[in-house]
């Protein structure tokens, strides 16, 4: 199966790159919808032909899962980057199609028994983690585009550097105003206080993970407001200093988010694949049970 990521180049000459990507995604979506509809129709026809439709959608599901495992193995094998990207896209596309097969197999209803609950939950977790993985992969691509480090380790180093930089900025004293010879306003003390009261903890701890997961800017906004309050009373030099600190705050927020994404990626890896393995075992067991108790109406 070919998943359209973007339209061919000769066709995109008249379109912008973004429009081409959007068109490719739309076509992929349409292909997915058509495939799901085809599966539903096929299952319906199968059920009408004096057969138990659960066998057909069950085998579509089982076949799809085996295919996904094969794609997973292919990803691990280490092909070229371009091919890997395509395999990943196919993996994601197949995953979405399998949701349709699963919905049909469960007759769009919740299970009744323990074993079925186990299978249902397993598939639901794998599917949910798969969708999350798709989102995380996109985030990772964006982060790479923005120059953010990809690994937790890299992010931590970057954050440490930011903290040091912020501390240096905060400690550096401003030069006196020689023209007027007026008394020196306590701007350094203000900035030192800002660092001590707000920036140290902000740069020191990543903050609430849940808030970060939802891209909450609340913590950053509070610091920004503090900085803005100082800006009114600060002179030009202090404002430049505050602007530099503001940039560091924004960068730290991005790093916090990147850190969360990196950890989520690790967590996703620990959920999606192992549970898939367990689900495959359960699926095989399910098939054995079904055929052992089958009454021959498949």
């Amino acid at each position, binding site marked *: 199966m070919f998943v359209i990521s973007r339209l061919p180049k000769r066709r995109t000459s008249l379109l912008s790159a973004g429009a081409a990507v959007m068109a490719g995604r739309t076509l992929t979506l349409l292909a997915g919808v058509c495939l799901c509809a085809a599966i539903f129709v*096929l299952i319906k*026809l*199968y*059920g*009408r*032909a*004096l*057969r*138990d439709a659960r066998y057909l959608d069950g085998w579509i599901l089982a076949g799809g899962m085996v295919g996904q495992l094969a794609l997973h193995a292919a990803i*691990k094998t280490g092909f070229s980057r371009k091919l890997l990207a395509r395999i990943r896209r196919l993996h994601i596309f197949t995953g979405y199609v399998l949701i349709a097969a699963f919905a049909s197999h469960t007759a769009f209803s919740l*299970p*009744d*028994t*323990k*074993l*079925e609950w186990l299978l249902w939950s397993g598939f639901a977790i794998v599917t949910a983690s798969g969708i999350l993985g798709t989102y995380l992969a996109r985030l990772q691509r964006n982060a790479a585009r923005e120059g953010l480090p*990809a*690994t*937790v*380790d890299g992010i931590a180093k970057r954050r440490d550097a930011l903290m040091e930089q912020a501390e240096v900025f905060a400690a550096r004293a401003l030069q006196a105003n020689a023209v007027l010879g007026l008394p020196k306003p306590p701007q350094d003390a203000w900035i030192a206080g800002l660092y001590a009261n707000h920036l140290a903890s902000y740069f020191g701890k990543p903050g609430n993970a849940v808030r970060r997961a939802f891209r909450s800017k609340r913590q950053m906004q509070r610091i920004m407001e503090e900085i803005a309050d100082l800006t009114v009373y600060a002179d030009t030099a202090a404002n430049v200093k505050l602007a530099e600190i503001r940039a560091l705050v924004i960068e730290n927020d991005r790093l916090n988010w990147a850190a969360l994404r*990196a*950890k989520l*990626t*690790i*967590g996703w*890896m*620990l959920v999606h*694949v*192992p*549970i*898939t*393995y*367990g689900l*495959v*075992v*359960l699926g095989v*067991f399910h098939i*054995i*049970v*079904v*055929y*052992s*108790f*089958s*009454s*021959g*109406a498949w």
Partner: protein
Amino acid sequence: MFWFGRLVSLCAQRAAPVLSSALRDRIAILVAFLTIIGIGAATSMMPTSTRLLMPGPLTSAHASLQSCSACHANSGFGKWTWLRGLIGGKPHGDSKACAGCHSIGEHAFNAHGARLDVLKRSTRHAEKRAATIAMAIPKSAMLQSMAFPASQMSARGIECATCHQEHQGAQFELTAMSDEQCRSCHTIKFDSFDRDHPAFDGYPFTRRTRIIYDHASHFSKHFPEVAKKSPTKNIPQTCANCHVTGADAGKSFMGVATFEQACAACHANQINGNERAIGPKGIAFLTVPGLDVQTLKSRNANIGEWPEDSEAALSPFMKVMLSRTKRGRALLTAVAGLNLQDLSRANAAQMTAVSNFVWEIKSLFNDMLSNGAGSALRGLKDANGVLSADAVADLTAHLPHDAILAAQREWLPSLALEMSRRKVTSDDADGVWEEMREAANIETRAEPSAQSRAEAEEKTDEETVPEPAGASAAEKKRAQSTSVKRDPRPCQVRLFGQCLLHNEQNHKVDAAEAGRRPTPDSAFSDGQRVPQPAKSPQAMRVGLGDVAAPQKKSAVKIADKDTSEADELLFPTADELREIEALTKGKSPLRAAPAPGVLASPATAPAGSTDAADAAARAGSDGDAESWAASGGWYRQDYAILYRPAGHKDKFMAAWLRLTARQSASDDASNAVFAALTHKDAQGACSKCHSIDTGANTGRSVNFSPAKAADAAGRFTRFSHEPHMAVMPNSGITDKGCLGCHALQKDSPYLKSFEQGNPASFASNFTPVKAEICRSCHTEGKARQDCQLCHSYHVDQIGTPEAATKTLLLGGD
């Protein structure tokens, strides 16, 4: 969650994605391994492990089933035995388990549970119809047929679970079936009844009516005539006078009123013969067939005594009774081509066959007298095998002993004596009878040469009843001793024809004198004492023809050959001699003391009617026995015992029709009875209304009852009259009532279709129902129009067999 968080942190500390990937794979394998262990542990250790595998709750009807093996034939009772299901066991194993509680018929795995030939016939019919009607097959149906042909499923046998899928919850409707599922198999495919259902194919008529009733002629001719002649008679005013919703099938079935309710007023007298202008009103059951006694005697054929005057034909019932043995069948075949009343051209072999035939008839009478009327039916079989006691009772209509006894005394007075002298031969000596039959047939076809005739005539001088081939001396002696035992002793006190006290002394004296006396046989064989045959009476055609008026009875002649050399014990006793002498002088002692229930006069009264017999005897008149039996029963006339139908549902008539119908195609004797009873002028007029079907394999059958709800079993279409009758008046569809759907066809050749045996070839009195009438209500948005509304999948009802509960034994637990 906590542990998962720690794990993520640990991985995060390791930092590198490559390292996480390896760890992830190890964890994944560990999870898979743990899953296997978990499944194994759960299945092995949990007490209700197999319930863990259940995909969902059972429907409420099956909820009480606890063990998987109750339905899943291969699952067994162990924790892992269900795995045997993977190997596969008996085909349709699980479906057969369904049959443990539900009786689903012997063709359960065919489509609709119908017989294969029925399905093939239906398919052929549907294919023909599909070729004639222009109908676009729905695309989805075409697609389904191409992708998943349902024929594959039906070819390997349709499992119960195909349509009835369990484990879907307590409230799940197990019998639900979609129209598309129905359509998947059928040749004619369409989407909905109101748009595309083909026109009904002669519905609801699939065969001719079982009861022959021409609505058109009754409406246009008979009812008006009756109304004109007898205004007091109740003429049906509405359809409901004769047709009512059947009590046996609730509200759905439209039944027919009983004979007594609807027909008796006009037709009862046709059955009991009161309206019969000519011919006997009874059916000859037992007869003494007329024989050319003179020729037999002149050719020295040994037939013993036989009434010369009888011109009766052998009754078809006797043919059936005689043909119950191989010997009888052989004899019937041997004499079939002969004119028994003119044997002048018969050859020696045929004469032998005739004399044997005579003895066979005597043997039949003797058997009936000795062992009851039912003994004449011994060996006969009906569709259920050996005749039951009820069947025998119906077939003999409780023929009284006295009736046969009286007839025997008049027709064959020395029967007991003669039979006692006969050697008992076994029916097992088949070869002899087969040879005789063949010989007679050959002789019939080719005139014998003079030499062979002479040889044959020599044979007739010998014992006419062949002895079993290879019979030992001991057997012969035993047969003789049997004969001695059957020699009747002289009677001292006789009451109502029965000997109460035997005269042992006279018997001994008689026995001693017997050697010195000429035997009656020898006396008759001298040619001087044999009376000349009386003038032949008018022809008597028992059964179908006219019976001549009772003729004067002449003496019975004994035309036996000289037996002077026979054992003295075979001589008649003094009493018997007196009786014989009296008979030869036309003074039968029987006349002086008639047996109860039997008229003394030649024209006898019905058996069992003692008063009438006595009255007739006292009056000394020839009472009309036939009229006396106006309400049905037995009576005697000339040389026949006749049965007059007692009215509708006469058991005798029905029993004989049932017995002979099936075999009538293959057995001449049965065919004779069946033809006699179903002839258009037959007594009882059964076949006037009860149609006769001829099946390819089942032979003929008489339809004694109109269509019943049970007859609808096996039909693919169902219809319930009652709800429609409630709705029709207000529906605006028709104001004609029943005729709105069933229009009378006045010119239909309804009666003509009954001239042949195939019930499927017919013309109805009414027009078939049109689909358009149904569509006036059964359309989208109004009444239901799904397939199962009118068509049941299971053409035979699914039943639940009764529980096989053993009775409690006394003294048992």
